[in-house]
């Protein structure tokens, strides 16, 4: 691993090093890929509680009389359904229906909103927002550099966050709460990227270290475990979540990504609507599809998927799934779109490994009654 002046560190960098985190370059950020073991961290989140530093993610605050009109224009989901205190997963779309970014939009007040954007796309998104906000009475503030973000995930997450924020456990799934933490204005949302119950703390840089160390120390008896990006990637793929830039991008639409539910054609006009309407009517020619290995082996991104001996596409994301004890992956497979259970093969190290088309999500937590959305 090389250190470069261009690499950015989160406020928790020193904490990660002290905890023995193995630091890697993740899209220009120095973040821990793991502390002790990806498998043990994965297990902690599925059964107890894991803490993740996700401070690299960006925060854009949107406010003003036309904030809702602005968000309805850039977002394919219907954020108009949100009442203050609620959040929604959604896709920002371009004119071609491609995905500019996948984000979580929280309505904090009547005219105040928070959009949590991906790290690698924060600057691109903000430029896109500024362009689309012209002529609208809306204020945009990119506060990504001023905030840190900590995800607390797992069946014990509610008990752990209660130690620091007594009101947080009463949040519904995709609820959002503004509150002062250590005297600093903060936001807690009941969201995550692991397929378990969980919370995300969005707090000013000044208090990130305190929030992190308090959650870890006080939550230790409940099993709170620091987790790296390695476990996070495995957890999110098992849960069927997209990794922007790898699974979806400006050239792939929500329909192709098998996330059609985030497109609300009936909500009124938005950027990309007509392209998406056409695609919905005609049907997609490729779709992000789950694949599960039936033999030993760990699939990797880029591995070809064969159906009936013919290459149907390549995997975008792939890993060993500890929950399924099998290799899993997702890739854009071309029409005719295969149904779950269809036999296929994945090429690994030049060898065809037996696999089948799988339902996504690959894993549904027994701790969550129903997948929140």
């Amino acid at each position: 691993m090389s250190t470069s002046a261009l690499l950015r560190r989160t406020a928790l960098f020193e904490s990660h090093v002290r905890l023995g985190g193995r630091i890697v370059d993740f899209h220009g950020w120095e973040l821990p890929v793991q502390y002790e073991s990806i498998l043990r961290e994965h297990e902690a989140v599925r059964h107890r509680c894991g803490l993740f530093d996700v401070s690299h993610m960006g925060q854009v605050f949107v406010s003003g009389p036309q904030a809702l009109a602005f968000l309805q224009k850039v977002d394919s989901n219907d954020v108009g359904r949100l009442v203050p205190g609620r959040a929604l997963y959604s896709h920002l779309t371009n004119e071609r229906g491609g995905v500019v970014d996948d984000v979580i939009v929280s309505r904090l007040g009547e005219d105040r909103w928070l959009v949590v954007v991906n790290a690698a796309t924060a600057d691109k998104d903000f430029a896109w927002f500024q362009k689309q906000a012209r002529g609208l009475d809306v204020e945009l503030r990119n506060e990504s550099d001023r905030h840190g973000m900590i995800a607390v995930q797992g069946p014990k997450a509610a008990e752990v966050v209660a130690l620091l924020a007594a009101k947080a456990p009463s949040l519904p799934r995709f609820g959002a709460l503004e509150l002062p933490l250590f005297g600093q204005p903060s936001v807690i949302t009941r969201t995550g990227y692991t397929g378990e119950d969980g919370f995300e703390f969005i707090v000013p840089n000044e208090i990130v270290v305190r929030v992190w160390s308090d959650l870890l120390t006080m939550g230790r008896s409940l099993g709170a475990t620091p987790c790296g990006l390695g476990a996070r990637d495995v957890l999110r793929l098992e849960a069927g979540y997209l990794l922007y830039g790898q699974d979806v991008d400006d050239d792939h639409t929500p329909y192709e990504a098998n996330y059609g539910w985030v497109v609300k054609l009936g909500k009124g006009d938005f950027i990309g609507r007509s392209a998406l309407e056409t695609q919905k009517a005609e049907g997609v020619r490729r779709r992000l599809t789950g694949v599960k290995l039936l033999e030993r082996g760990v699939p990797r991104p880029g591995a070809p998927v064969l159906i009936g001996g013919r290459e149907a596409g390549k995997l975008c994301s792939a890993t060993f799934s500890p929950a399924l004890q099998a290799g899993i992956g997702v890739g854009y497979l071309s029409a005719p779109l295969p149904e779950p259970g269809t036999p296929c093969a994945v090429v690994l190290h030049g060898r065809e490994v037996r696999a089948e088309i799988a339902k996504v999500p690959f894993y549904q937590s027994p701790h969550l009654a129903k997948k929140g959305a």
Partner: protein
Amino acid sequence: MFDPKSLKYQKTHEWLAPDGTVGISDHAQKEITDVVFVEPPKVGRAVKQGEACCVVESVKAAFDIYAPVSGEIVAANADAAKDPALVNREPYGKGWLFKLKPSKPEETSALMDARRYEEFLASPEAAGGSH
């Protein structure tokens, strides 16, 4: 359990014991992270020094294991294939990978002893790492 000090190493982090047993170093198992699959070579296969003959896969990636010397594979560790975490837990013991019968014993001279391997790990060359 082998004494790491008595082993010979190559730059790709495999070790060779005097009886022909091959495994990967503690440094390598830490770099590879959680091993989830081991695909050992077939017994009876003839391998050349430096030939990829075994695959160790972690959650993160797949790693080729190179024969430290030429010879015939005489044993493969079925326990490690069944419980791949052995490679992480006991890289110098139950986590061995395979055993070979060297055909060119003189090739051992190209390997590093424990002290030189330690120096190699501290060098910038190792920081780039093949694993």
